[in-house]
């Protein structure tokens, strides 16, 4: 296919050709960035939690009359839940992965250091690693004599009595590697308070923090042996088989309500719901962006159809002449396809520059990373495809123009 006649024709329709190129360029720029944004959101939504998400349930209850002994109350509740048929394991925890609100502590490796090393989230409660289903990579699990009641610990803090504070902790692999790169972390000390160090007794495979907004810090997690007692911020986490979840959740809530009909169940959900809720804004945004991309491509395709139809109608006579002079139907078809390809290529080239500029703008205003180069070919291929699809109809109509048109006067 000779490209020169196409170029010389386009030169006679400079304005319309430029408009089409501009439209393709704008579409290409927005589509590249939108696809990139969708990728970012999907990647975030895929963030691993390190727990057996499909086997877990979360229940929170609020007591109407504050129990006289919250620790006994919690122990009773946990015992009740363990008896519910289908329950494999029960934990109590001050927070849950992707639960949103998080308790954090400032870690120092030397109590005298003026600045914290980093901030990590702290899980307090019993049975957390076993129930959540995160694997112990090395060391040991927390044992019942490690645990301290939170009130005792609080008193210890005020009086400076270091014996009444917890002395050991579990940490994640990621945190261990960040604190002591390439070294064994077992037996080392972490200081959350200036007086007492927590000895690392076990390293967990992975446990995500409740408010995992920054993937780099999502696994900065500690589990500290503090017994919290029953209160409305405490969660009961239940492990069961995935297919039993609905049944077990209903039975567990019924059991808790039966123990005290006046208490209010404030949260009852599976971990699938916890994750869905945590990432709901990302999902919504990805959906909207997909919609925008679809709408943009449709509008651009319609624009191409419109202009191509117009050109075909305008050149009916020329096409007739070419056909009469021996051009085949496929010659005519290819002519229009190539013309569209040329315009699309120019548009895409311009669009790439625009996409880059748009990304720079987004980087400064919305804290987005740089657009990776892979997204450019994605946009290019999409627009070439859309262009070819859109031009096919008008091009086929052009190919169907009979040679005899050449002999008719307009």
């Amino acid at each position, binding site marked *: 296919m000779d490209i020169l006649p196409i170029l010389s024709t386009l030169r006679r329709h400079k304005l319309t050709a430029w408009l089409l190129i501009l*439209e393709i360029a704008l579409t290409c720029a*927005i589509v590249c960035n939108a696809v990139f944004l969708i990728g970012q959101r999907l990647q975030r939504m895929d963030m691993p939690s390190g727990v057996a998400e499909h086997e877990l349930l979360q229940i929170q209850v609020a007591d109407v009359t504050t129990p006289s002994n919250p620790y006994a109350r919690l122990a009773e509740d946990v015992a009740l839940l363990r008896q519910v048929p289908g329950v494999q394991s029960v934990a109590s925890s001050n927070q849950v992965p992707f639960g949103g609100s998080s308790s954090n502590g400032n870690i120092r490796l030397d109590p005298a250091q003026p600045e914290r090393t980093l901030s990590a989230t702290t899980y307090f409660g019993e049975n957390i690693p076993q129930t959540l289903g995160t694997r112990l990579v090395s060391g040991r699990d927390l044992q019942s004599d490690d645990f301290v009641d939170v009130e005792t610990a609080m008193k210890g803090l005020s009086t400076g009595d270091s014996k009444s504070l917890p002395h050991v902790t579990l940490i994640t692999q990621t945190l261990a590697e960040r604190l002591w790169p390439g070294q064994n972390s077992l037996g080392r000390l972490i200081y959350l308070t200036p007086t007492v160090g927590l000895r690392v007794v076990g390293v967990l495979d992975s446990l995500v923090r409740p408010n995992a907004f920054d993937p780099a810090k999502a696994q900065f997690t500690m589990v500290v042996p503090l017994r919290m007692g029953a209160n409305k911020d405490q969660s009961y986490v239940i492990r069961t088989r995935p297919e039993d979840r609905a049944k077990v959740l209903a039975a567990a809530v019924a059991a808790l309500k039966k123990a005290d009909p006046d208490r209010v169940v*404030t949260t009852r959900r599976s971990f699938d719901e916890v994750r869905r809720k945590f990432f709901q804004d990302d999902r919504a945004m990805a959906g909207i962006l997909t919609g925008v991309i679809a709408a943009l491509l449709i509008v651009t395709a319609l*624009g191409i159809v419109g202009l191509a139809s117009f050109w075909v109608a305008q050149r009916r006579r020329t096409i007739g002449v070419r056909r009469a002079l021996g051009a085949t139907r496929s010659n005519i078809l290819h002519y229009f396809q190539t013309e569209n390809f040329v315009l699309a290529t120019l548009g895409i080239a311009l669009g790439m520059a625009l996409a880059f500029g748009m990304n720079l703008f987004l980087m400064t205003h919305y804290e987005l990373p740089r657009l990776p180069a892979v997204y450019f070919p994605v946009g290019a291929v999409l627009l070439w495809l859309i262009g070819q699809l859109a031009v096919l109809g008008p091009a086929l109509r052009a190919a169907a123009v009979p040679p005899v048109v050449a002999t008719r006067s307009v």
Partner: protein
Amino acid sequence: MFDYYLNLALRSLRRNKVLTALMIITLALGIGASITTLTVLRLLSGDPLPQKSAQLFYAQVDPYTRDGYVPGKTKPQRLMAYPDAMNLLHAHQARRQAAMALTDAKIAPLHAGEHPFFSDGVMTTADFFTMFDAPFRYGGGWTADDDESRAQVVVISDFLNDRLFGGASSVGRTIRVNDHDLRIIGVLKPWAPQPRFYAQGLGGRSYGDGDAVFLPLQTARAASMDPQNDDCWAVADTSKLETAPCIWLGFWAELSSDGEVAAYRQFLSNYVQQQIALGRFYRPEVALSDLPQWLRDEKVVPDDVRLQAGLAFGFLLICVVNTVGLLLAKCLRRSQEIGVRRALGATRRAIFAQFMVEAGIVGMAGGLPGLVFAELGLWCIRHQPAEYAGLAHLDVHMFFLTFLVALVASMIAGLLPAWRASLLAPGSQLKAA
């Protein structure tokens, strides 16, 4: 003359129905998307108290240690510690001032057999209602003396009053909140500022229903009601938040002139310097932001919504470019007609006007389906999980704005084709035919 152009335009649009429909639909899509996102943006960036927002200031001081502090770069903490909030409150340096935190209020049923329930509560101080213009249906707020004496009183919302007392005045009656009997001294009229500016940073949602109960801060704390949000700079006994190294209160002041604002800012700085001298504080930064500024700092309009609005206008731009192309194609096809009209004495201006009218008709015609697309878009927004979802409705302003945007977009799209058409020389076109 306008009638004639209208006639010509309609005739021309009818002649090429497919192309006309294409233009109208693409323009409508762009308008629908823009109006949808504009409605959401307007909803989110609204002023919760238009008559007063310029006089309300959010004060910040920073009791945190040197941990992670970068002089000049670290912004002061969003919340205040109890001693600082009380010191500022008792200094009475502003016309009105109030400290506040959000809490879950457990409300006992009035009748046996009903279950207790949790409602949104605000623990605050006396000036809250007058400072924020919260309107009372029955009774009124409490006094500064009630604050200090931990009076067992409460102000409830209209919806809680409806639920518990069927809407009749409940002033003087008693409700049980967190196991404490409180006397109702006021019932508010429906009051739910959007965004819920006073809840920013306190751990509550930013949009939606108002709060159900308002209690004196110290009364609520004595009933062991905890704030939704607290942040501690050291491991602390959080059961005694008043003395713990924790921040959990928001602090607002009413200041009505630039002089008062400057004086208050100076007062805050002096206070912080004094605390540094006492060894309580390390960081010297203070902030005093008026309500609109505070909402901007808090990013109450999410970045995602801005991004969506940007996208929608990018989309509209593409739709306009598309319409320019199609209008241009149509007008070039009618070169002969234009040539004839010019030869018969029509001026350039007349040709230009004729094509602009045609573009305007396309715009107005696009406005109607644009409105439908916008309603469809808002319907989708209402079914999203966002807090503001239920509030996204098209109002009269946006209704007219839809047609204005449609008209302006189509006129812009029409400029180039109309200008091109008006440039055509009569002679050459006639010859070609």
